[in-house]
């Protein structure tokens, strides 16, 4: 490149030959030479959300915790090799001995530290969390319990999301009398404590998984409907909706194709906060005795089982409690992280 000198008025005239452009100055840049601004690059909305989500420690930690528990819940029983309801027993001199109330044991670690082997019929068995009073492996049961708790939470919350979102969007979109009626209905349901709903359900439904699921279905959608209604109120007067209507879009299209994708962020956050509530409620119901029925198990029923034997085997209650606490922690962290990532404040940018 040439360097042009600016002649100063009061300086002595400098004689320099005029610059004669050469052919090289008129060559097109190769693609390789064109650089893109990587420091201030524009990025898609969801990519930005991902970046902001993983930039913070807590949400990442929460995600890792939840993933580890999901993997354990799916593959834990395969590792241990016992069945969920299998009562482990051994044949000693023609007698059946069940492995009841055995403390946590891993034979090779025991051998490593003491140099000896266990001197009972289950010397070669591995029980990471021990066994319960009946003789079932607690590790397998904890994994299965976590699986059932997670399954109930996910299924119900997703159905709740669909119900709540549709309800809130429709209520917000039509406004007027429809909105007022629908909101009164929500208020009335909202002012019935969940416990009352569960107990009335318990009068005619058999105890078990379905009772928990229906109870959750009846209560959890309200939060979602409130959020999506608020989003709809915010969205519906914007120009894009007006444009869509001008182009002849029907109500259904505006509600579900135009507005819904824009409300998905807050809804996902709400889902992340609802899942721990669902797990908590399930644990509570199972603890009280109207949830999961034996021999199936969930986190809550395992805690109840541990509580019943706390004076004899105090460690039995610990694994399900830790799983429950970690699940709550993980989902709360993810929820917090998502909320911040979806609606970034200026400080985070």
């Amino acid at each position, binding site marked *: 490149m040439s360097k042009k000198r600016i002649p100063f008025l009061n300086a002595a005239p400098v004689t320099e030959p005029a610059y004669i452009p050469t052919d090289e100055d008129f060559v097109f840049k190769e693609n390789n030479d064109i650089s893109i601004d990587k420091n201030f690059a524009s990025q898609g909305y969801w990519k930005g959300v991902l970046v902001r989500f993983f930039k913070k420690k807590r949400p990442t930690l929460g995600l890792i915790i939840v993933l580890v528990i999901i993997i354990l819940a799916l593959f834990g029983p395969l590792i241990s090799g016992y069945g969920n309801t299998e009562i482990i027993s051994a044949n000693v001199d023609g007698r059946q001995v069940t492995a009841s109330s055995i403390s946590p044991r891993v034979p090779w670690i025991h051998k490593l530290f003491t140099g000896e082997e266990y001197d009972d019929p289950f010397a070669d068995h591995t029980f990471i969390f021990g066994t319960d009073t009946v003789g079932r492996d607690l590790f397998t049961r904890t994994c299965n319990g976590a699986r059932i708790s997670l399954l109930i939470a996910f299924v119900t919350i997703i159905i709740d999301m669909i119900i709540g979102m549709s309800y809130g969007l429709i209520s917000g979109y039509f406004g007027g009398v429809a909105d007022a009626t629908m909101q009164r209905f929500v208020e009335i349901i909202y002012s019935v404590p969940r416990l*009352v709903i569960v*107990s009335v359900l318990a*009068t*005619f439904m058999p105890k078990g998984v379905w009772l928990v699921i229906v109870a959750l279905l009846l209560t959890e959608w309200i939060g979602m409907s409130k959020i999506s209604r608020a989003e709809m109120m915010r969205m519906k007067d914007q120009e894009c909706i007006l444009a869509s209507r001008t182009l002849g879009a029907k109500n259904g299209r505006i509600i579900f194709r135009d507005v819904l994708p824009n409300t998905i962020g807050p809804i996902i956050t709400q889902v992340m906060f609802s899942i721990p509530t669902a797990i908590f409620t399930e644990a*509570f119901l199972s603890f009280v005795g109207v949830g999961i029925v034996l021999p199936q198990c969930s986190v809550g029923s395992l805690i109840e089982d541990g509580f019943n034997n706390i004076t004899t085997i105090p460690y039995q209650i610990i694994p399900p409690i830790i799983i429950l*606490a970690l699940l709550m922690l993980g989902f709360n962290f993810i929820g917090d992280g998502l909320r911040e990532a979806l609606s970034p404040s200026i400080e985070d940018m």
Partner: protein
Amino acid sequence: MAKYILKRLGLAILTIFIITLVLFILVRIMPGNPFPSERMSAEQIAAKRLEMGLDDPIVVQFINYIKNIFVNGSFGKGSSLYNGVPIKSVLPACISNSFRIGGMAILFGTIVGLILGICAALNKNHFLDVFCTVISIIGVCVPSYVFMIYLQYFFSYKITIFPFYFDKNQFLLSAVLPAISLSLFSIATIARFTRNEMVEVMDSDYVLLAQAKGMHGAPLITKHILRNALIPIVTVLAPLIVDLLTGALVVEKIYGINGIGKLMVDAIAGEGIDYNYVLALGIIYSALYTAVMLVVDVVYGLLDPRIRVTAKRG
């Protein structure tokens, strides 16, 4: 303001009425027999149905039920289906037990939570702040009954400081453990909320102005920051109070407290479902819930003039 309160009161009463109606109809029309048919003969069941008025039209039944609540405070001809104990005779003691323990828990929780939250906000990003965060995470993640189990295990079983089960003759001593375990969730919520509110207020312009005018220390915190930061806490307190009544369920079951929670658990998880108890307790719970919400809304309106203005407009 009076008009606003009256309107809210009317709505609350209407809500309770509708809930009562729906619960009543649900319990009455549900399939299934309220009596254990394998233990009672057909004649016995018929006699019992006649005694409880189950053969009347449902409208008549409902009117009688409502009349009974107001005339003599009994919930229908309600008595336990299993041991014949009338609801009216057990209810006052249960409600007073639950309320005293729940009240202690909410008092303790609010005070400790506020202190923790304020300390954390004043020492932002310091040791105390981290401590407060850890406490609130634990409090939110671990259910209250787990705390109850462990407190009971250590302080009543390993070291016998407190009675192992609830004993109404030593009320104060035996209320300590359940009150502490119930309050942990409220401590966590209130501490976190107070901290966030205070940090937000401390960053606001009017606090900067007050500081620029030369205010600092205690007067700044109590007169300027806390006044504004504490108002929204009333909204968190409302669900907490209600939750303490319902959350006390399991704690009451574990510690053997004769409260409405234990009554409810026994009614739904006992040897069979006790329809009369479920209906009566359901109505009581909903009424409590609505009443607490109403009080909170009104108190909030009194505390914060901005709410009053919008309420008038709307």
